[in-house]
Protein backbone atom coordinates (compact mmCIF):
# COMPACT_ATOMS: atom_id res chain seq x y z
CA UNK A 1 0.00 0.00 0.00
CA UNK A 2 2.79 2.40 0.95
CA UNK A 3 4.61 1.41 -2.22
CA UNK A 4 1.47 2.07 -4.26
CA UNK A 5 1.41 5.70 -3.12
CA UNK A 6 4.80 6.31 -4.72
CA UNK A 7 3.50 5.16 -8.10
CA UNK A 8 0.36 7.20 -7.62
CA UNK A 9 2.47 10.32 -6.98
CA UNK A 10 4.70 9.74 -10.03
CA UNK A 11 1.56 9.23 -12.12
CA UNK A 12 0.08 12.51 -10.84
CA UNK A 13 3.32 14.26 -11.76
CA UNK A 14 3.27 12.78 -15.27
CA UNK A 15 -0.40 13.69 -15.75
CA UNK A 16 0.29 17.31 -14.83
CA UNK A 17 3.35 17.52 -17.12
CA UNK A 18 1.56 16.18 -20.21
CA UNK A 19 -1.47 18.39 -19.58
CA UNK A 20 0.51 21.58 -18.98
CA UNK A 21 2.61 20.93 -22.11
CA UNK A 22 -0.62 20.26 -24.09
CA UNK A 23 0.67 16.86 -25.23
CA UNK A 24 -2.79 15.50 -24.49
CA UNK A 25 -4.36 17.71 -27.16
CA UNK A 26 -5.68 16.26 -30.43
CA UNK A 27 -4.71 19.56 -32.06
CA UNK A 28 -1.03 19.27 -31.05
CA UNK A 29 -0.83 15.75 -32.52
CA UNK A 30 -2.53 16.82 -35.75
CA UNK A 31 -0.12 19.77 -36.02
CA UNK A 32 2.83 17.46 -35.34
CA UNK A 33 1.91 15.03 -38.11
CA UNK A 34 1.52 17.99 -40.49
CA UNK A 35 5.01 19.20 -39.47
CA UNK A 36 3.59 22.63 -38.74
CA UNK A 37 4.95 23.10 -35.24
CA UNK A 38 8.17 22.30 -33.44
CA UNK A 39 6.47 21.84 -30.06
CA UNK A 40 5.95 18.05 -30.04
CA UNK A 41 9.27 17.34 -31.75
CA UNK A 42 10.96 19.55 -29.15
CA UNK A 43 9.33 17.59 -26.32
CA UNK A 44 10.08 14.12 -27.71
CA UNK A 45 13.58 15.21 -28.80
CA UNK A 46 14.45 16.67 -25.39
CA UNK A 47 13.02 13.63 -23.61
CA UNK A 48 15.05 11.26 -25.80
CA UNK A 49 18.33 13.20 -25.56
CA UNK A 50 18.09 13.62 -21.78
CA UNK A 51 16.86 10.02 -21.59
CA UNK A 52 19.96 8.75 -23.41
CA UNK A 53 22.15 10.68 -20.97
CA UNK A 54 20.15 9.28 -18.04
CA UNK A 55 20.44 5.66 -19.24
CA UNK A 56 24.20 6.03 -19.85
CA UNK A 57 24.59 7.58 -16.39
CA UNK A 58 22.63 4.74 -14.77
CA UNK A 59 24.64 2.06 -16.61
CA UNK A 60 28.06 3.60 -16.00
CA UNK A 61 27.58 4.42 -12.35
CA UNK A 62 25.73 1.13 -11.70
CA UNK A 63 23.02 3.27 -10.13
CA UNK A 64 20.86 1.43 -7.61
CA UNK A 65 17.10 1.39 -7.30
CA UNK A 66 15.19 2.05 -4.09
CA UNK A 67 15.49 -1.66 -3.20
CA UNK A 68 19.28 -1.45 -3.36
CA UNK A 69 19.47 -3.51 -6.57
CA UNK A 70 21.36 -2.33 -9.60
CA UNK A 71 18.91 -0.82 -12.10
CA UNK A 72 18.52 -3.22 -15.00
CA UNK A 73 17.00 -1.92 -18.21
CA UNK A 74 15.43 -4.76 -20.12
CA UNK A 75 15.95 -4.74 -23.88
CA UNK A 76 13.01 -4.92 -26.26
CA UNK A 77 12.89 -8.21 -28.22
CA UNK A 78 13.99 -7.83 -31.84
CA UNK A 79 10.67 -8.46 -33.53
CA UNK A 80 11.15 -5.99 -36.35
CA UNK A 81 8.16 -7.06 -38.48
CA UNK A 82 5.86 -6.69 -35.49
CA UNK A 83 7.48 -3.40 -34.46
CA UNK A 84 6.90 -1.95 -37.93
CA UNK A 85 3.45 -3.38 -38.74
CA UNK A 86 2.06 -2.91 -35.25
CA UNK A 87 3.64 0.53 -35.20
CA UNK A 88 1.81 1.49 -38.39
CA UNK A 89 -1.52 0.28 -36.96
CA UNK A 90 -0.93 2.23 -33.75
CA UNK A 91 0.13 5.33 -35.71
CA UNK A 92 -3.16 5.28 -37.63
CA UNK A 93 -5.09 5.22 -34.36
CA UNK A 94 -2.86 7.81 -32.67
CA UNK A 95 -3.38 10.36 -35.45
CA UNK A 96 -7.12 9.67 -35.64
CA UNK A 97 -8.05 10.08 -31.97
CA UNK A 98 -5.11 12.41 -31.34
CA UNK A 99 -3.96 10.69 -28.18
CA UNK A 100 -1.62 7.85 -27.32
CA UNK A 101 -2.33 5.63 -24.29
CA UNK A 102 -0.95 7.97 -21.57
CA UNK A 103 -2.94 11.02 -22.68
CA UNK A 104 -6.11 8.94 -23.04
CA UNK A 105 -6.16 8.35 -19.29
CA UNK A 106 -5.08 11.89 -18.43
CA UNK A 107 -7.98 13.26 -20.50
CA UNK A 108 -10.49 11.41 -18.30
CA UNK A 109 -9.19 13.57 -15.46
CA UNK A 110 -9.81 16.60 -17.66
CA UNK A 111 -13.45 15.62 -17.92
CA UNK A 112 -13.43 14.41 -21.53
CA UNK A 113 -15.45 11.30 -20.83
CA UNK A 114 -15.77 10.23 -24.47
CA UNK A 115 -12.16 8.98 -24.23
CA UNK A 116 -13.46 6.13 -22.05
CA UNK A 117 -14.93 4.65 -25.26
CA UNK A 118 -11.45 4.77 -26.84
CA UNK A 119 -9.84 3.12 -23.80
CA UNK A 120 -12.40 0.29 -23.61
CA UNK A 121 -12.01 -0.25 -27.33
CA UNK A 122 -8.22 -0.28 -26.99
CA UNK A 123 -8.44 -2.93 -24.27
CA UNK A 124 -10.60 -4.98 -26.66
CA UNK A 125 -8.08 -4.35 -29.45
CA UNK A 126 -5.31 -5.72 -27.24
CA UNK A 127 -7.51 -8.74 -26.52
CA UNK A 128 -7.97 -9.32 -30.29
CA UNK A 129 -4.20 -9.19 -30.69
CA UNK A 130 -3.84 -11.82 -27.97
CA UNK A 131 -6.26 -14.08 -29.86
CA UNK A 132 -4.57 -13.64 -33.24
CA UNK A 133 -0.99 -13.47 -31.99
CA UNK A 134 0.16 -16.84 -33.34
CA UNK A 135 -1.09 -16.02 -36.84
CA UNK A 136 0.71 -12.66 -37.09
CA UNK A 137 4.29 -12.10 -38.28
CA UNK A 138 6.76 -11.04 -35.57
Amino acid sequence: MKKDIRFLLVGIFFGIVLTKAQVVSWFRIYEMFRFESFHMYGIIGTAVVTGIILVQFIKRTKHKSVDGLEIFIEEKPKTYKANLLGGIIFGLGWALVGACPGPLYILIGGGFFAVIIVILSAIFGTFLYGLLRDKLPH
Partner: protein
Amino acid sequence: MEKLIYEPWPWYLAGVLITVNVYLLLYLGKKFGISTGFKTSCSVLGAGKVASFFNYNWKEERWLLVYILGTIIGGFIAFQFMNGDAPVLVSESTKLALEKLNIVPNQSFLPSEIYGLEFFSIKRLLILVVGGLLIGFGTRWADGCTSGHAISGLSNLQLPSLVAVIGFFIGGLLMTFVFIPLIFK
Protein backbone atom coordinates in the same frame (compact mmCIF):
# COMPACT_ATOMS: atom_id res chain seq x y z
CA MET B 1 5.66 30.84 -10.29
CA GLU B 2 2.24 32.07 -11.29
CA LYS B 3 3.29 31.78 -14.92
CA LEU B 4 4.33 28.18 -14.35
CA ILE B 5 0.95 27.33 -12.89
CA TYR B 6 -1.32 29.10 -15.34
CA GLU B 7 0.48 29.19 -18.67
CA PRO B 8 1.27 26.31 -21.03
CA TRP B 9 4.70 24.80 -20.44
CA PRO B 10 7.46 25.11 -23.05
CA TRP B 11 8.72 22.00 -24.87
CA TYR B 12 12.14 21.88 -23.17
CA LEU B 13 10.63 21.88 -19.69
CA ALA B 14 8.19 19.10 -20.64
CA GLY B 15 10.95 17.05 -22.29
CA VAL B 16 13.19 17.19 -19.22
CA LEU B 17 10.29 16.43 -16.86
CA ILE B 18 9.31 13.36 -18.91
CA THR B 19 12.84 12.06 -18.32
CA VAL B 20 12.45 12.82 -14.59
CA ASN B 21 9.34 10.63 -14.73
CA VAL B 22 11.33 7.86 -16.46
CA TYR B 23 14.05 8.12 -13.82
CA LEU B 24 11.57 7.97 -10.92
CA LEU B 25 10.03 4.78 -12.31
CA LEU B 26 13.46 3.18 -12.90
CA TYR B 27 14.45 4.17 -9.37
CA LEU B 28 11.30 2.46 -8.11
CA GLY B 29 12.37 -0.64 -10.06
CA LYS B 30 9.91 -0.34 -12.96
CA LYS B 31 9.99 0.44 -16.64
CA PHE B 32 7.99 3.23 -18.26
CA GLY B 33 5.45 1.82 -20.73
CA ILE B 34 1.78 2.68 -20.55
CA SER B 35 0.20 0.51 -23.26
CA THR B 36 1.07 -2.58 -21.19
CA GLY B 37 -1.85 -1.42 -19.04
CA PHE B 38 -4.30 -2.58 -21.75
CA LYS B 39 -2.78 -6.06 -21.52
CA THR B 40 -2.93 -5.97 -17.73
CA SER B 41 -6.61 -4.98 -17.97
CA CYS B 42 -7.29 -7.97 -20.24
CA SER B 43 -5.63 -10.29 -17.73
CA VAL B 44 -7.52 -8.80 -14.80
CA LEU B 45 -10.78 -9.32 -16.73
CA GLY B 46 -9.95 -13.01 -17.23
CA ALA B 47 -8.74 -13.04 -20.84
CA GLY B 48 -6.13 -15.61 -19.77
CA LYS B 49 -8.83 -18.26 -19.98
CA VAL B 50 -9.19 -17.70 -23.74
CA ALA B 51 -5.68 -16.71 -24.82
CA SER B 52 -2.47 -17.83 -23.15
CA PHE B 53 -0.92 -14.41 -23.96
CA PHE B 54 -2.90 -13.01 -21.03
CA ASN B 55 -2.20 -15.93 -18.74
CA TYR B 56 0.45 -14.57 -16.39
CA ASN B 57 0.64 -13.06 -12.96
CA TRP B 58 -0.81 -9.61 -13.64
CA LYS B 59 -0.24 -8.63 -10.02
CA GLU B 60 3.34 -7.81 -11.07
CA GLU B 61 1.83 -5.02 -13.15
CA ARG B 62 -0.45 -3.75 -10.41
CA TRP B 63 1.86 -0.79 -9.93
CA LEU B 64 1.06 0.30 -13.50
CA LEU B 65 -2.66 0.44 -12.79
CA VAL B 66 -1.93 2.59 -9.72
CA TYR B 67 0.36 4.81 -11.81
CA ILE B 68 -2.38 5.16 -14.46
CA LEU B 69 -4.86 6.15 -11.75
CA GLY B 70 -2.31 8.79 -10.75
CA THR B 71 -2.17 10.18 -14.30
CA ILE B 72 -5.97 10.61 -14.24
CA ILE B 73 -5.69 12.54 -10.96
CA GLY B 74 -2.81 14.58 -12.43
CA GLY B 75 -4.99 15.48 -15.40
CA PHE B 76 -7.78 16.49 -13.03
CA ILE B 77 -5.48 18.71 -10.97
CA ALA B 78 -3.99 20.41 -14.03
CA PHE B 79 -7.39 21.01 -15.62
CA GLN B 80 -9.11 22.20 -12.46
CA PHE B 81 -6.43 24.24 -10.76
CA MET B 82 -3.74 25.03 -13.33
CA ASN B 83 -5.77 26.51 -16.16
CA GLY B 84 -5.43 23.23 -18.03
CA ASP B 85 -8.31 23.92 -20.38
CA ALA B 86 -6.78 27.02 -21.94
CA PRO B 87 -7.39 26.98 -25.71
CA VAL B 88 -4.74 25.15 -27.71
CA LEU B 89 -3.39 27.73 -30.14
CA VAL B 90 -2.20 26.05 -33.32
CA SER B 91 -0.14 27.52 -36.15
CA GLU B 92 -1.80 29.50 -38.97
CA SER B 93 -1.25 26.75 -41.55
CA THR B 94 -2.79 24.13 -39.23
CA LYS B 95 -5.76 26.48 -38.73
CA LEU B 96 -6.38 26.61 -42.46
CA ALA B 97 -6.16 22.84 -42.73
CA LEU B 98 -8.64 22.44 -39.85
CA GLU B 99 -11.10 24.82 -41.47
CA LYS B 100 -11.11 22.64 -44.58
CA LEU B 101 -12.08 19.71 -42.36
CA ASN B 102 -14.86 21.76 -40.73
CA ILE B 103 -13.10 21.46 -37.37
CA VAL B 104 -13.07 24.67 -35.35
CA PRO B 105 -9.49 25.53 -34.30
CA ASN B 106 -8.41 26.89 -30.89
CA GLN B 107 -10.95 24.96 -28.84
CA SER B 108 -9.90 23.27 -25.63
CA PHE B 109 -7.83 20.07 -25.86
CA LEU B 110 -10.11 17.93 -27.98
CA PRO B 111 -12.26 18.87 -30.96
CA SER B 112 -15.96 18.65 -30.12
CA GLU B 113 -16.39 17.43 -33.72
CA ILE B 114 -14.92 14.10 -32.56
CA TYR B 115 -15.31 14.01 -28.80
CA GLY B 116 -18.44 16.10 -28.22
CA LEU B 117 -21.15 14.36 -26.22
CA GLU B 118 -23.93 16.91 -26.78
CA PHE B 119 -25.65 14.65 -29.30
CA PHE B 120 -25.33 11.06 -30.41
CA SER B 121 -23.55 10.45 -33.69
CA ILE B 122 -22.75 7.10 -35.25
CA LYS B 123 -19.80 8.66 -37.07
CA ARG B 124 -18.21 9.98 -33.89
CA LEU B 125 -18.78 6.70 -32.10
CA LEU B 126 -17.16 4.82 -34.99
CA ILE B 127 -14.12 7.13 -34.96
CA LEU B 128 -13.60 6.55 -31.23
CA VAL B 129 -14.17 2.78 -31.41
CA VAL B 130 -12.00 2.20 -34.49
CA GLY B 131 -9.31 4.54 -33.13
CA GLY B 132 -9.24 2.58 -29.88
CA LEU B 133 -9.05 -0.77 -31.67
CA LEU B 134 -6.10 0.43 -33.77
CA ILE B 135 -4.32 1.74 -30.66
CA GLY B 136 -4.90 -1.41 -28.59
CA PHE B 137 -4.07 -3.88 -31.35
CA GLY B 138 -1.17 -1.88 -32.76
CA THR B 139 0.61 -1.10 -29.50
CA ARG B 140 0.62 -4.71 -28.39
CA TRP B 141 1.75 -6.02 -31.77
CA ALA B 142 4.50 -3.38 -31.87
CA ASP B 143 5.30 -4.23 -28.22
CA GLY B 144 4.95 -0.67 -26.99
CA CYS B 145 3.64 2.82 -27.60
CA THR B 146 5.04 6.31 -27.38
CA SER B 147 6.19 5.79 -23.79
CA GLY B 148 7.69 2.31 -24.15
CA HIS B 149 9.29 2.77 -27.58
CA ALA B 150 9.69 6.49 -28.41
CA ILE B 151 10.80 7.46 -24.89
CA SER B 152 12.14 4.40 -23.01
CA GLY B 153 13.34 2.42 -26.04
CA LEU B 154 15.05 5.25 -27.90
CA SER B 155 16.67 6.41 -24.63
CA ASN B 156 18.21 2.96 -24.41
CA LEU B 157 19.25 3.12 -28.09
CA GLN B 158 17.19 0.10 -29.13
CA LEU B 159 16.74 -0.66 -32.81
CA PRO B 160 13.29 -2.32 -32.40
CA SER B 161 12.07 0.95 -30.88
CA LEU B 162 13.41 3.01 -33.77
CA VAL B 163 11.62 0.65 -36.20
CA ALA B 164 8.42 1.00 -34.16
CA VAL B 165 8.66 4.82 -34.12
CA ILE B 166 9.14 4.82 -37.90
CA GLY B 167 5.98 2.69 -38.06
CA PHE B 168 4.12 5.18 -35.80
CA PHE B 169 4.96 7.93 -38.26
CA ILE B 170 4.05 5.95 -41.38
CA GLY B 171 0.63 5.23 -39.83
CA GLY B 172 0.23 8.76 -38.47
CA LEU B 173 1.07 10.42 -41.78
CA LEU B 174 -1.26 8.08 -43.69
CA MET B 175 -4.09 8.95 -41.31
CA THR B 176 -3.38 12.68 -41.34
CA PHE B 177 -2.96 13.16 -45.07
CA VAL B 178 -5.05 10.37 -46.59
CA PHE B 179 -7.81 9.20 -44.24
CA ILE B 180 -8.65 12.28 -42.12
CA PRO B 181 -9.52 14.35 -45.22
CA LEU B 182 -11.84 11.52 -46.34
CA ILE B 183 -13.43 11.09 -42.90
CA PHE B 184 -14.15 14.79 -42.32
CA LYS B 185 -15.07 15.80 -45.85
